[in-house]
Structure formats: structure tokens, C-alpha cells
């Protein structure tokens, strides 16, 4: 099981890299924040795979935490975008 999971990590890393690339590359701020959402999903995937490879459910707690917290970051990003043009006030 562990061996296969190790291999499954590779596409995840690729996804991570792509999301990171988009995040850095933009070009618009919205692109970066979309990429951040993607990043969250990939990280949750990582947590799940780690749980399997170590056999410890504790990593699913991490997944839950991630899902909880990253939404707030997305919301903050959105607010930043809305307000940056003075449209929100």
C-alpha cells in the first residue's frame, strides 16, 4: 500500500507546482487567489495520502484543519480584491 501511495504523491506534487506557478505568475490577483484554493485542495490530498502511508488517522485531522482555515484565507483574499478598487465601501 505504502509503495503505491508514494507514487500517488507525485501527481500531487505536480498539481502543487502548477498551482504554485499560477499563484506566483498571476497575472491578476484573482488568478493567484484561485490558485490558492487549488493549493488547499492539493494539501488536503497530501494529508490523506500521508494518513495512508503512515497508517495514522491523525493526518486526517490536519486535512480537516486545512479545510477549515483556508476558506477564511480565500474570503480575505476576495475582500482584498473587492476593496482594492474602492468598490466595497
Amino acid at each position: 500500500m505504502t509503495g503505491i501511495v508514494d507514487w500517488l504523491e507525485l501527481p500531487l506534487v505536480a498539481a502543487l507546482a502548477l498551482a504554485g506557478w499560477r499563484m506566483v505568475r498571476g497575472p491578476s490577483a484573482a488568478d493567484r487567489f484561485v490558485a490558492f484554493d487549488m493549493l488547499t485542495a492539493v494539501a488536503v490530498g497530501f494529508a490523506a495520502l500521508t494518513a495512508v502511508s503512515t497508517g495514522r488517522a491523525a493526518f486526517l485531522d490536519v486535512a480537516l484543519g486545512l479545510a477549515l482555515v483556508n476558506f477564511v484565507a480565500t474570503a480575505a483574499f476576495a475582500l482584498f480584491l473587492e476593496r482594492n478598487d474602492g468598490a466595497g465601501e
Partner: protein
Amino acid sequence: MFVLLLVALLGSCIVPLSARYVGKGAGFIVALLPFGLAAAFVAYAPVVERGWVRGEGIAWAPSLGLDLTLRLDGFSFLFCLLITGIGGLVAVYAGGYLTDKPRAERSRFFTLILLFMTAMLGTVLADNMLLLIVFWEATSILSFLLIGFDSRSARSRRAAIMALQVTAGGGLALVAAAAMIAQVTGNWSLAAVAGNAPQIVASPYGVPIILCVMIAAFTKSAQFPFHFWLPNAMQAPTPASAFLHSATMVKLGIYLLARFEPVIAATWWGRTTLITVACVTMAVASVQALRAESFKSALAYSTMASLGILVLLVGLDGPAATVAMIGFLLAHAIYKAALFFCAGSVLHATGTGTLRSLGGLARKLPMTAIACTGASLSMAGIPPFLGFISKEFLFEAQLESSWELIPLAIAVLVNAVMVGVAGVVTLRPFFLKPVKPVKVEHPESVSLFMPPLLLALAGLTISLDPDWITRVAIRPAVAAVYGRAVPVDVSVWHGWTPMLGLSLIVVAIGAAIVRWWRSIHAFLRDAYLIEEIGLERLWETTVRGLLRVSAAVTGWVEHGDLRRYVVTTAVALVALVLWSLAVAGAAIRWPVVDALRPAEALVALIGVGGAVAAVRARNLLTTMVAVGITGFAVAITFMVNGAPDLAITQFTVEALLVVLLTALLLAVPLDAARSRRPRQRAGDAAIATAFAAVMFVAMVDMTGAGHPTPAADWFGRMSYVAGKGLNVVNVILVDFRGFDTLGETTVIAVAALLGASLLGARKTEPQPRRAVHYSFAAASGPLFWLLIVASVLILWRGHDQPGGGFVGGLVAALAFAVFALARGVRSAETRLRARPTTLVAIGLLLAVLSGLPGMIAGGPFLSQLWWEPPAGVPLPKLGTTIAFDLGVFLVVLGAVLTFLFGLRREGAR
């Protein structure tokens, strides 16, 4: 002697208080202390007379090498008599001189004068060199305070500072000398210096020691090139000038040189240096004495010349030189103090001290005129005054020593100048006709004319009946300085000797100087060159230059450019590491290469990629996002390497940073235009690379050393057994190393206070804005509660599962963040119901107090107690750790909310 010093010290503090209540007679009351001390010292005369030495010692601070050892020999005894005797007269005189001053000021003056007297006594009595330095420096400080006594005058302040700069510098040289001597001989005794002379000279410290002693002596005794402070010191009130800057303090240099003569003489260059410096000083002082315009400065320069003579006499070899030195010391102290008193009286009476504008005062100040005449005759070396005898000794010493004629010639000339000065300062103010009438505002009083008169009389009586003083003071002093008894013949008439011939020449030249003083004076006055090459100006230029250098250096170092500070720091840090590595000279240990796990490696590299992107981005939002990627990748790295607690914390922190930093970015311009030139950027890149390289190498070596984990292993074994928790990290945080956590919690609490202080000030609420997004607003309520429940669960389960107070608090803060984002800060605040800082304070109290129950139960602080339900009862185990973690939770929650509310509000402005 201790008793006497103690009496002097206490008396100095108490006796002057009388000046606050007594008017004119205060001087007489104050004088009781010095005169009483003088009488007490005279009681030691029988001891000293026999050539014995009285020593006393008390252990004080043996760890520092400091013992209170006092030593009274003939030389010290002579000084003690001069200090206390003249000190008493100064007190009397000052009582009259300062009648106009406010009483508090007079009292302060007496205090300083008496303290100075105490310090002088201490200096000449101290045997331990540290003790000597204590008193020596005290005289410098008191001199500083006395010169600047009239502190409203800028000239006084300047003169005081100059004097302190020079004499305190000399004091430091003395400290160095003492430290080096102690290094060589292993003890601090001044008396032992003579005995250890060969050892000292032979040591590598020999030359520095002698140079330092000379610098100390020359600065104190105003020898060239450190002489210029003395004439300026005449800014002090005249009684102080008479006491400090003529009769006593300036002679401390001579005292020191005399004590060190065996060491100085043991080198081939020591005596030459002394004599050269003395001759230069004498020459410079003579010229300046003739240029001097005021009574006091003419006296000051002549004092300088006299000090030169004394140094010369220390430098000359042979017993006659020592005899002459002691004789001249005594004579000079007596007549010069008298002359200063007279000068002060003239100044006091007429308000002017300029010689050219004075005249005809003999009638108005008759007793002063008599005293001045007597003292001047002694200074001029006219028989039968004491000055004559001392001058005879001087020439005898010159002739008997093994030195060439140049010093002699200079001495003759200098003595002639002294004759001239003596004549001028007596004739001009008192007996010649003034250019214009001189008005006398204060007539002379008993306390003003009695002290100089007594001194003038002493100059006469000692020379007429020298037996007692010779027996008691001069002969023991000579013996003490020369090292063995020397026959001393103090009498006015020695018969027709070469010395008498020299005296006659001196008097003749002196008379000529008096006759043509006006033209000589005028000629020298106009010679600007002398002023120009004066070292005073050089010194001031040096000090000013130093200030400029200081300003320049400070400006160069403290340029105010943060970047350059960081550059300096970073370069220094890297250099320090490289230096340390170079000195240590160890080779790198390479770690055993372990298998590369490609996915994890890529994750880590993505982290690096984020960092690189952050470096390259010029938009602040991009930079923040890139830094976030690094944080994210690092969190995943933690996760895949078995650190769920770290991962969850790092993820939460990253999310919170987004919430908080976007608020910052809302407030500031996002475009960070390049602020560094390309070359600077290249340099910075080099520094950063070097730093990274150094860290990399160190880390490689560290991992090459293996990973010993004794403490970590212990924690793994004991976590459940002793700490009742399955999550070892959490048990470490709340129990094994709970104290770290407590400190960290306090850090966060303090951060919250800071945030509240910085952000809470603005009460202006931004315009209420409509809900950000319909769905978000609608969902924010349930989301809030979901997050709150999650945070409590994370807190509660933290002891056994990933989580704990920190993460719990962060997640709870995120719950409020949802609210603040969806409905505005105000409604989030309303939902909280309390001030965030109140949560912080309560949390901090809870965390600290949770450490006490265990302590009350008899263990150390933070001993966690556990309550376990009886078997079969379905209740969880409870521990004080829960209170601790709850405290942490509240602090974190309150702190993050402080910033969340404040920064979001700041961003919304």
C-alpha cells in the same frame, strides 16, 4: 591616621553647614578643622623625626587588591603640614573673600575646599596605589568643581572642562601604571615600588610604566606639554587657586615623581626626559609669566615655572637635589599661597586683576601690601627670606649634579624672571602710580590680610629659625625621598659660595626685568606667534577636531539607512562565522546519504521556488503570495515527515497571515518600486548567498554528526506514563517544557497589548458597509459556530491528538475572522462581547495560576496534577494541563483578535 582622615571627611560634610548660619566669622569656624588636623599631625612629629614610618592598614576589598593602607613618612608628613596649615588659612581667607556670596553657595565652597583637603591628605598618606588613585582622582574632580564654581560663566566652565580633560587623562595613565606594576610585582604598595625598581624596569612593562607615571605627574603638575590647563584654572575663586593650583594639588605630580624616582632613574632616559621637560616648561612659563596681563595669571605662570624647577630637581641626581627639592617645595608653597591671597584681595577690593591698570594700593590695602612685599621678597630669593635659602639649594644641586650647564643656565634665567615677576606684582599694584585712579570697593578685612601676612611671616621666621622645621619636616622628608638620611644645613649665610654669585646674577637680571617690564611685556604681548603656538589652542583644536571626527564617524555609522545597517549586520555575522570556522579549523562531516523521496523533495523545492519568487516579485501582493507558498510547502513538508501538529499550526498561521496581511496591503501601495541600484542588488545577492552557503555547510556538518536525541527519547518514553498524554508534542508543550510555553504565551499577550495600544487608538469607525457577499453573509453564522466547535475540540483533544491550545486559539480566532470578513469588524466585536485584551489578560492569569496548585501540593511550579475518575466511571481524566492549555487558548484568541479587529479596521480606512 584613619581617624584623622575620617574626621576630615565627616568634618568636610558637617562643618561647612555652619556657613549657612554664621556670616563673616564662618571662615574661622571652618578653619578649625584643618588647624585641628594640623595640630594632630604635629603630634606625629616625634615619630617622623626619628626617621620612622607609621603605617596603618585595614582590609577593605582584598578581592580587588585594595586595602586601606596608609603610610606616614617624612615626605608625606611635610605635605600633611602644608595641606592642613595652608588649608586652614585658605578657610579663613575664603570666609572673608566670599562675604558677598549667598550662604548656600559659601557653604558649598567650604565643603569642596575641605573635601579637597581630605583628598590631598589621602593621596599623600596612601600606600596602596589604588587608594592613592582614589584620592588622586578625587582631587581632580574637586579641582574641576572648584574651577567651575562660578558656573554661570562660560569661561569658568570651559576652564574646568579643560582641566578635567587633562588631569583625568593623567589619572587614567596612573591607573594603567598601577595595573602594570601590580602585574609585575603582584602587589599594590607604593612603598614597595622603590624596592622593586630593577624588576619593574626589566619587565616588558617597564617603559610603559614609567611613561604612564610621567604623564600622570606632568598633567597634574602642569608640565609641558600638558601645562595649559593651569593658567585657565585661575577661573576658580582665588582661595581655591591659592590652595589647589599653587600650594598643594599641583605638587602631587612632584610627589609621584619623587616616589618613582628610583624606577625612573634606573633607565638611561628617565632623568633626561624629566630634565628636558622641566627645562621646556620653565622656559615656556617664564615667557608667559612676562606676557601675563593679570595678577593671577602672572602668578599662575610663575607657579608653572616653579613646578618645572621641582621636576628638574627630581630629575637631577645627588642628595643636594633632593634637599633643594624639599626646600623649594616648602618655600614655594608658603610664598605663593600668600601672593595668591594678595592677588585675591586686590581683585576683591578693586574688581580688576589687570596689572597695567592697578597702582597705589599700598595706602588703601596697607596690610595686604606688607604681606605681598614679604612674600615677593621670598619669591625673589632675597635674604633673609626662605626663598633665598631654597634658591641657594637649587644652585648647589645644579652644580653638584652630573649635568651639563644648559639646565643651570635656564634655571638662572627662570629665577631671574621670578624675581622680575615678584617685583612687578608687588610694585605695580601697590606702590607705582596707577594709569587712572583705582576705586576700592571692599576694604581689606582681618580674614583677608591675616592669612597672607602669617605666611609672609612664616617665610621669614623659618629662615631665621630653621631648626624646628628642618628637624621635623625637611630632614625626614629628604631622607624619605632620597632613601637614606642626608645632612641638611638650612641657614641664610653659607659664606661666599658660587651659589651666592649665581644669586646675585639672578637678582641683577630680575631687577632689570622689573625696570623694563612695560616694554618687555608689550613686546611679548604683541608677539602673536607665541599665542599661536600655544598648546592651549592646539588642545582645543584637537578637542574640536575630535568632536568633528565623532560627528563624522557617527554620521557615517548611523546613517539612518536601515538597509546599510542590515548589510553591516549580515556581513559581520557571516564574517564572524567564517572567522570562527577558520580559527576552529574543523573539517566538514558529511552525513550518510539517505534515500531521496522524490515527491517530498519536490515539495521542498517548491518551497524554495516560492522564496525565489518572493525575492523576484516587485508587487507586494505577489511577494506575500510567494512567501505564502513557501509556508505552505514547508507545512506539507512537516506533514509528510511525521509532524501533524506542526503542519496544522503552520497552515493555520498561513491562513491567519493572509487575513491580517491583506489588511495591511489594503492600506499601503502595492507597487514596491526598486529601491536598490543594480550594484546594490548584486551585493545583496552576494551577501545573501554567502549567508545561505554558511548555513548550508553548518547544517550538513550538523547532520553529519548524527542525530542524538537523548531528551526526545525520554519524552517519548515518559509522555504517557508521566504526562498522561498520547500526543508527545503536546505533552512537551504543556508539561515537560510547559515553562517555554508559558513564556511564549506571555510573548503573545505582550504582543496583544502592543497591538491594542497601537491600533486601538483610532476610534473612528469606517462607514458601515453592506454585506460582502450574500451567500457568505448567510453562511457566516453557521461557519462561525462550526469553527468555534472545532477549536474547542482541537483544544480538548490536543493532549492526545494533534492540536492544543495554540492551534485551538488560532482556529477560534478564524471563526471571528469569518464574521469580521462577512459582516464587518463591528459585528465581530459585538459577538465577542468582551475586549480581546481582557481575554488575553484572563488567559495569561489562568496559565500562570495553573502552575500553582502543583506547587501548593509540594512540587515545583507547573507540576501538573491529574484527577482520574474511579474505575468504571465514564468520565475523562482531568488535569491542570487543561487549565494551562485553556489559558494559552484564550491568550492566542484574544491576541489574534486584537490584531484582526485593529488591522482590518486600519485596512478599511
